[in-house]
């Protein structure tokens, strides 16, 4: 692409004629290569992961049988994977409840954090007043408010969702604030010169310009949410995988606890995967060649 700039105006025609195909080739080649690489590396690493997990489980199974480990102490993979199959309705029900709690808490977190970040980063007084509070709340362990929330709202998924909200709210808020503040003032000037009103200025310039920061906050938020939701359900819910594991624990039902653990890992994988898809949607330039 470099030499193009140096060419003479008189060569414009040849330049564009040569230029177009080469650009398209580059792009398709890049895209195909990227997909190929991705597919290759994804399939490859998935295969390796599957093989090593299978090997590990096989070793585990063999050791447990060889040393005659009791199931109530350490269940065999065949025990808890069996439970995953035989009790799939129960487990799936709780997994769905957990997922709904994540979605609710996370969505609420983003929907509150982004507008608040905009307000804070736009209004100086608000920032000076609120920032210390935010820093304090951010370092405070979120689960400690669980018992308080239980008194206010009673045990249930609502409290778990609120804890998830608190856990993913702060990373999104902090990164969104950084994002809004990093938007170049001259971009605002350009929007004004186009005659953009306050809403257009926000929706078409500021929000998208801050989006990479917001997305990176959301990525941290999702990790916190899937981690936090299980703990939140331990202490404050009557539904969800955390609750199911807690209940299984009180019945000493080791296989179900392990099955719950596997299900929780699957839910976490699913949400992280969804977040990656969302990130690609928001940052299209990152995966279309170059």
């Amino acid at each position: 692409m470099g030499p193009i700039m140096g060419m003479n105006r008189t060569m414009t025609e040849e330049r564009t004629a040569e230029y177009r195909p080469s650009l398209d080739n580059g792009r398709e080649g890049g895209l195909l290569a990227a997909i190929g690489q991705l597919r290759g590396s994804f399939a490859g690493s998935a295969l390796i992961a599957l093989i090593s997990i299978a090997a590990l489980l096989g070793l585990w199974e063999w050791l447990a049988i060889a040393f005659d480990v009791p199931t109530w102490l350490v269940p065999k993979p065949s025990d808890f994977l069996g439970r995953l199959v035989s009790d799939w309705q129960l487990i799936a029900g709780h997994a769905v409840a957990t997922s709904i709690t994540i979605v609710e808490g996370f969505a609420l977190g983003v929907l509150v954090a982004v507008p608040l970040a905009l307000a804070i980063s736009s209004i100086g007084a608000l920032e000076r007043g609120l920032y210390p509070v935010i820093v304090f709340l951010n370092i405070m362990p979120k689960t400690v408010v669980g018992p308080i929330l239980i008194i206010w709202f009673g045990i249930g998924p609502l409290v778990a969702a609120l804890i998830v909200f608190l856990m993913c709210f702060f990373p999104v808020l902090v990164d969104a604030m950084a994002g809004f503040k990093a938007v170049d003032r001259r971009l605002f000037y350009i929007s004004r010169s186009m005659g953009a009103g306050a809403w257009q200025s926000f929706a078409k310039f500021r929000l998208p310009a801050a989006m990479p920061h917001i997305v990176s906050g959301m990525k941290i938020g999702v990790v916190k949410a899937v981690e936090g939701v299980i703990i939140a359900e331990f202490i404050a819910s009557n539904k969800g995988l955390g609750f199911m594991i807690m209940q299984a624990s009180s019945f000493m039902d080791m296989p179900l606890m392990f099955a719950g653990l596997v299900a929780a890992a699957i839910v976490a994988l699913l949400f992280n995967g969804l977040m990656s898809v969302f990130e690609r949607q928001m940052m299209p330039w990152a995966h279309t060649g170059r």
Partner: protein
Amino acid sequence: MTAVQSETNPSASALASSGGSSKGASIHAKGISKIYGSGENAFRALGPIDLDIKPGEFVSLIGPSGCGKSTTLLLVSGLEPPSEGSVEVDGMPLTRPISEVGIVFQDHLLLDFRTALKNVMLQQEIRGLDKAELRERAANLFDRLGLKGAEDRYPRQLSGGMRQRVSIARALVHDPSMLLMDEPFGALDAITRTQIRHDLEMLWLETRKTVLFITHSIEEAVGLSDRVLVMSTSPGRIVEEIPIDLPRPRPAHLGEYPEFSRYAQQIYEIFSKLGVYRF
């Protein structure tokens, strides 16, 4: 002026036919200055200065860093109010940001998640202009600026020079009467800069927008302008006005003209006298 130019230049029809007929605006600023802060922290960043730019004129503002060039651009566009004085565009006093304008800054300031074409079409979206017409104008500008084939690429997938070209297309697609450029080629390499300077000159010759062009580069100022305004150190005032009487389009290598060296010499001498250079 526009009419005369496009009649004498047959290739001008390309832009003119796709709705590009807006005449250059006149800019008239009287005693404008900018004072940032207040009380003890008050800081005079500019002026007072007068500006008198004729419709279709290409005027450069050259001056040392921090003298208030960017501030001047903001005042002229109405994006910031002057602390003293007033600005008139086409005889109308400015009270809010003018919209009949295209602005290009040193950084392209394109939006990352919009393709090159979508970045340019933002003008149409925000202004609510006719989509088909603006698309045609955009296609034309992409063609003229050597951007063909780059329409669907994202800014991150373009070279620095191409990004700046897209930024220029964005500033012109809605056919404004005035183009304000703040060191638009400042971040580009010398080869790209020379080419893009020529491309801009050709576009200007066809459309005759009024251009206020801010630069640090004597070569750019002399290479592009009808008139160069030289500013003093901060708070900037206009200390000299140099009409550039060179034929157009001007060549890549300005050294071809002995007059170029004379103009350059003149500007160097002013800067030396002002203490901008300490050799």
